[in-house]
């Protein structure tokens, strides 16, 4: 039966993230964007909330909670409302953990999942994007070729979050026309991580280019073993995660612009009492809500193990447009003040533009 009300448990989790945002994230996110660093205690505190361990079965030391893409979107939206860089950092280990939970072999689960359930933030990440404008996740230029009972990976990747510190990377490569994932441990010969990238937005998130130069990977490290992985599903899980994050960023920008418009006076009254401003805000609110609902539907479908390519790709497409339009309008509502870094709307505007680029950088 159709319903739009989150369960009590989901609402509790959302409230917990709200509290975390207010107590920690929102106190420092602006400085983090300037410095490019996220304080370790924020990451540790977030880790204690157990976003990742909660979806890992008990037999691998997780909390054994129900794995739900829908719950994941609620968390992703809320975290991204706090700050997108931190949201991506906090959820980065999921880029490896969730595909292994869903598609890993028994050996892979045994070997890797317990390390996501410890006391310390597990630095793990995945590499999908390649540095070219016509990047296509279904036709990667990074290749995986069979050789000597294993694989040899070659290619270039970029926008790999936390790569320098990661002790486990899930690298996606083109294996005979299909995209497959390969689990590569830190220090594997041929895996070369370059300098940290400098981006327009998500400046507090450390991202890296990396190259694979004839990098040898044992066949046991192919995600899902002989069966391989269902990359389409992984990519759809990523689409809904990013759409939810776009909603979070959009909502942050909208709320700030709305409050500003009620405070700021011009011609003797708040600028919000003029339709030119009020209608911009109304349109922002409508598109934020619409994106959230579309994202929920796609996530709901994924939770039923159905193909959600159409729903997830339409939601992501809508979310990409919404994110840039809403954040752009938020800057516009603030006018000159929006352009000044004293106000955060320019940060959200820079982050908002990124959603068209951030393929596979988050997952639920």
């Amino acid at each position: 039966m159709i319903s739009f009300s989150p369960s009590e448990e989901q609402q509790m989790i959302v409230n917990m993230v709200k509290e975390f945002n207010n107590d920690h994230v929102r106190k420092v996110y602006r400085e983090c964007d300037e410095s490019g660093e996220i304080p370790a205690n924020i990451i540790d505190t977030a880790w204690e909330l157990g976003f990742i361990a909660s979806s890992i079965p008990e037999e691998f030391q997780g909390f054994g909670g129900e794995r739900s893409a829908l719950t994941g979107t609620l968390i992703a939206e809320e975290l991204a409302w706090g700050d997108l860089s931190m949201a991506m950092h906090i959820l980065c280990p999921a880029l490896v953990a969730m595909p292994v939970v869903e598609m890993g072999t028994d050996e892979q689960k045994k070997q890797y999942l317990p390390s996501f359930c410890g006391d310390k933030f597990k630095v793990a990440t995945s590499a999908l994007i390649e540095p070219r404008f016509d990047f296509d996740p279904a036709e990667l230029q990074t290749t995986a070729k069979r050789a000597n009972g294993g694989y040899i990976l070659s290619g270039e990747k970029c926008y790999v979050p936390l790569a320098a510190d990661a002790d486990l990377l899930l690298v996606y490569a083109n294996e005979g026309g299909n995209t497959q994932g390969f689990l590569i441990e830190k220090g594997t010969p041929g895996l070369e991580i370059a300098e940290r990238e400098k981006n327009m937005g998500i400046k507090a998130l450390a991202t890296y280019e990396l190259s694979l130069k004839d990098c040898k990977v044992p066949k046991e490290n192919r995600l899902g073993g002989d069966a391989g992985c269902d990359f389409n599903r992984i990519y759809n899980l990523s689409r809904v995660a990013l759409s939810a994050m776009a909603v979070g960023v959009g909502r942050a920008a909208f709320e700030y612009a709305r409050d500003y418009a009620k405070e700021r006076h011009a011609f003797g009254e708040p600028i919000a009492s003029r339709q030119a401003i009020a209608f911009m805000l109304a349109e922002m609110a409508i598109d934020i809500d619409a994106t959230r609902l579309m994202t929920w539907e796609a996530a709901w479908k994924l939770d039923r193990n159905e193909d959600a390519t159409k729903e997830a790709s339409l939601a992501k497409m809508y979310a990409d447009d919404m994110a840039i339009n809403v954040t752009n309008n938020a800057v516009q509502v603030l006018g000159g003040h929006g352009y000044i870094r004293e106000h955060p709307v320019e940060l959200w505007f820079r982050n908002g533009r990124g959603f068209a680029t951030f393929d596979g950088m988050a997952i639920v």
Partner: protein
Amino acid sequence: MIDFELTPEEQAMIDAAHKEALEVVRPISRYYDEHEHESPKDFIEQQWQQQAQGGGSILGLGVGASLRILENCWGDAGLMLVAPSSGLGGAAILASGTQEQQANFLKRFGEGEPKWGAMAMTEPGAGSDTAAIQTTAVLDTETNEWVLNGEKIFITGGQRSMESDGLVVVWATVDRTAGRAGMKPFVVEAGTPGATIDKVENKLGIRASDTATLILDNCRIPYENILGSPEVRRVDSSQTAGFKRAMATFDMTRPIIAAMALGVGRASLDFVRETLEKEGIPIRYGLPSHKLTAIERDVMEMEAAYKAALTLMLRATWMMSQFQPNSLEASMAKAKAGIVVAWITQKAVEMMGPLGYSRKYLLEKWMRDGKINDIFEGTGQINMLIVARRILDYTREELK
């Protein structure tokens, strides 16, 4: 628990409505567009049988009912409005009538000959600015009757309501100096002396549906025909009881208008998809945007916009069925659906070129039909204004 699954009963209702739209409505759709003031008698009779079985009301509206209406309008939005029902008049009676009034006025829609109900708000000098209404209602204390005088225009189904044994809910002021506070809804039953249909409009679209002018000339109705209290409460004008009731009605009907719009939008989208399919042109979902053809991109943008409006409509309807206040969400849904469907239908005509513009097919009709949803029950702009006031927590004085 967030859920997007329809119940089997809802699905069955939607499937039945779709089948009927396809088999009964579509074959006569073009005829009644081209023969504007002709009545589709067989269709009316058949709809009446169904309606009477269902209790004669469009209300008790839940998600399933809104999706059924969507299917009806996928068939034909004009004919959907011609199907006999208590209509917006019934909605107003349900929103602000007593139990007794509801029983008294709505019973007729489940028995006898086909009947219609309508709501009369707009006047020649007052459209969206409903507080500027000039039609008056004066209580004759000797006879204990209300005497109505004025002119109401753009009444959807007004002619059929007055020419059957139906009714029209007329909004009139009991005190012109009181603005919105003085506005009250009155039930004018068909056959009441002094209430006459003056004109039936020729329109851009939804031509099967009549849009009428009602003249009230010393029209006397019983005291009991006022919906709600006759008392004029001068508080802050945005919070007056009379006006609030009108708005409560709109909170119920706006998601329905959104559903109607979406039916027309999906008809257009389906036409485009089917035409492309026939030509062997696939829509490849999930490709990166740089690999999409212009046609694929257009179709996906139309589908995404449609989905956006659809989910907003479902949320507003669901909230209504849960008895949650949904004024903001209802206006969001209506504003979005109105804009989106006007755009989708126009875009579809553009994309289909000579097929789109020709009256040989229904696409051009849907572009004309779809536009009404951005206008009636509050224009897109009025709905944006309501959304804006809600999100800003502003009164109508603070945001004009």
